[in-house]
C-alpha cells in the first residue's frame, strides 16, 4: 500500500516535470526540470528493486549528460532563446500527431505482457549487478555491441563536426 502511494508520488512528479521541460521558456529551467524528471525515474528504478540501475541513472544522466546540457545552454544568449517558442500557433498538426501517438502508446501498453509481470518483492543483495552483467554479455551481446558501435560512430561524428577546418 505504502509502495503504491510512493509510486504515485514519483510517477506524478516525473510526468509533471517532463511536461515542465517542454513548457518552460527558459532553457535553464527546462534542464532543471529534466533533472527532477531523471531523479524521479531513478526513484522508480529503486521501487522496481534495481538500485544499481537507479544509481547508474543518476550517475550518467544527472551527473554527466545534464551537466553538459547546462554547459552548452549557459553559453546561449538566453533572451534570444526565450523568443523561440517550442510550439508555435501554426503547428496544430503536430498536436494532432501527439494525440495519435498517445492513443497508440496506451493501446500498446494495455495489450503488452509488461503489465502482467510481477516484481519479486525482496531486494536483491547485490543490487542485480551480476544479473545485468551476465545478461548483457551473454544473451544480449549482439545488441550491446551494436549499441556501442553506434555510440562510437556518433562520437567520431561529433569530433569531425567539432574539428576546426584545416587549411
Amino acid at each position, binding site marked *: 500500500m505504502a509502495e503504491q502511494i510512493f509510486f504515485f508520488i514519483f510517477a506524478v512528479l516525473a510526468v509533471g516535470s517532463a511536461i515542465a521541460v517542454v513548457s518552460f521558456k527558459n532553457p*535553464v529551467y527546462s534542464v532543471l526540470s529534466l533533472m527532477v524528471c531523471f531523479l524521479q525515474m531513478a526513484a522508480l528504478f529503486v521501487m522496481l528493486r534495481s538500485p544499481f540501475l537507479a*544509481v547508474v541513472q*543518476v*550517475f550518467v544522466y544527472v*551527473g554527466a549528460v545534464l551537466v*553538459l546540457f*547546462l*554547459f552548452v545552454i549557459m553559453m546561449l544568449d538566453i533572451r534570444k532563446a526565450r523568443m523561440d517558442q517550442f510550439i508555435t500557433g501554426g503547428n496544430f498538426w503536430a498536436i494532432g500527431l501527439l494525440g495519435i501517438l498517445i492513443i497508440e502508446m496506451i493501446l500498446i501498453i494495455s495489450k503488452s505482457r509488461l503489465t502482467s509481470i510481477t516484481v519479486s518483492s525482496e531486494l536483491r543483495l547485490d543490487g542485480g549487478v551480476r544479473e545485468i552483467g551476465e545478461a548483457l554479455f551473454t544473451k544480449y551481446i549482439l545488441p550491446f555491441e551494436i549499441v556501442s558501435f553506434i555510440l562510437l560512430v556518433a562520437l567520431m561524428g561529433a569530433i569531425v563536426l567539432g574539428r576546426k577546418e584545416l587549411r
Partner: protein
Amino acid sequence: MGQEEIRGLLPVLELYLSNPLVIMMLEILLIFIKVVVVTLVVFSLPLPLTYMERKVAGHIQVRLGPMRVGPHGILQPLADMIKLFFKEDIIPSKADPWLFRIAPVISMVPVFAVFATIPFGDKITIPFINYEVSMYISDMNVGILYVLAIAGLSVYGIILGGWASNSKYALLGGLRSSAQMISYELALSFACIGVVMIVNSLSLVDIVKAQSGWHWNIFYQPVGFVIFFIAGLAEINRIPFDLPEDEGTLGAGYHSEYSSMRFAFFMLTEYVAMVSMSILAVLLFFGGWNGPSFLPGIIWFVIKVVLCIYFFMWTRFTFPRYRYDQLMSIGWKVLLPLSLLNILITGLIII
C-alpha cells in the same frame, strides 16, 4: 528508582523488545535518530574545520592563525558564523532571483545525502538490553556508486549559482566547474573500480570488512590511490585544482555575487565535500575503522579522516594553482588512461 527496580524491569523490557511491531517501531525511531545525529554532526563540522584550516595555514606560513577570540582563537569560527548571519543578503538586480536563491541549497543537499550510506564503524551492542546498533544509516549494496553519483550532483549548485548571478566571473567559474567535474569524475570512478574488483563488492561495509588485518587497499592499489587522490582534489575544488573559485583570475568564481548565509552555504558545502572525500579515501584505501585493537574502531576512523583532511589542507598551502588547459590535459591525457591501465592490470592479476 533503585538499582533493584531497574533490574526488575529488564525482563519486561526484553518481552517488549521481542514483539515484532515494537521492533519495527524501534528500528524506524533508530533510523530517525541516526539521521538527525549525522546531519547535526555534519552540519557543525565546518566550524572546527575552518578553525583547523586557518591554524594549519598560519603555521605553514610561520604565523599563528586566529588567536584573539577565545583561548588560541578557538571561538573564531563562531564569531565568523555570527558575522555571516547578520550580513545583508544581497541579490543582484539582474540576477535570476529564484535560481539565485535555490542554488546554494541545491549544492548543499547532495553532500549531505552522501552520508546516508557512509559507515562510521561496525555494529556495536548497547549494554543491558543486548540491542545491536549499526554505525551507518543504511548499508546500500551499491554504496560506493551511490556516493560517487550523489557527490557529483553538487556541481549543479555551483553551475546554477554561477549562471544565476548574471556576472561574467561567476559564469566562468560555473563553466570551469562543470567541465572540471565531468573530466575528473571519470578518473575518480575508475580509480574506485580497482578497489571494487579486489573486494568483489560495491557495498562500503563489505569494502571495509575486506581490509581487516592490515590488508589495506593502498598496499594493493597504490596507483589507484594516487589517481583517486588527485581526482578527489579536483572534485572538491581545492588547490591545486580550485579553478572554479580562482581568486587570481575570477574574483571569487561562482560565489562572487553571494553574501551572508547563502555564501556560508557554499562554504559549508565545500567543507562537507572535503570531509566526505576524506571519508571515502579512508574507507576505500585505508581500511576504514580497522586498526590495532587498543582503541575502538570509531576512534581509528576519526583519526584517519582527520589525518586525511590535514593532508588536503597541507597540499592546499604548499602547491600553486594549475592553469585551466593544464588541468584538462592532466585529467584526460594522464589520469584517465592511467586509471584504465590500472583497471586492466588489476583484472589481469586477479585472473
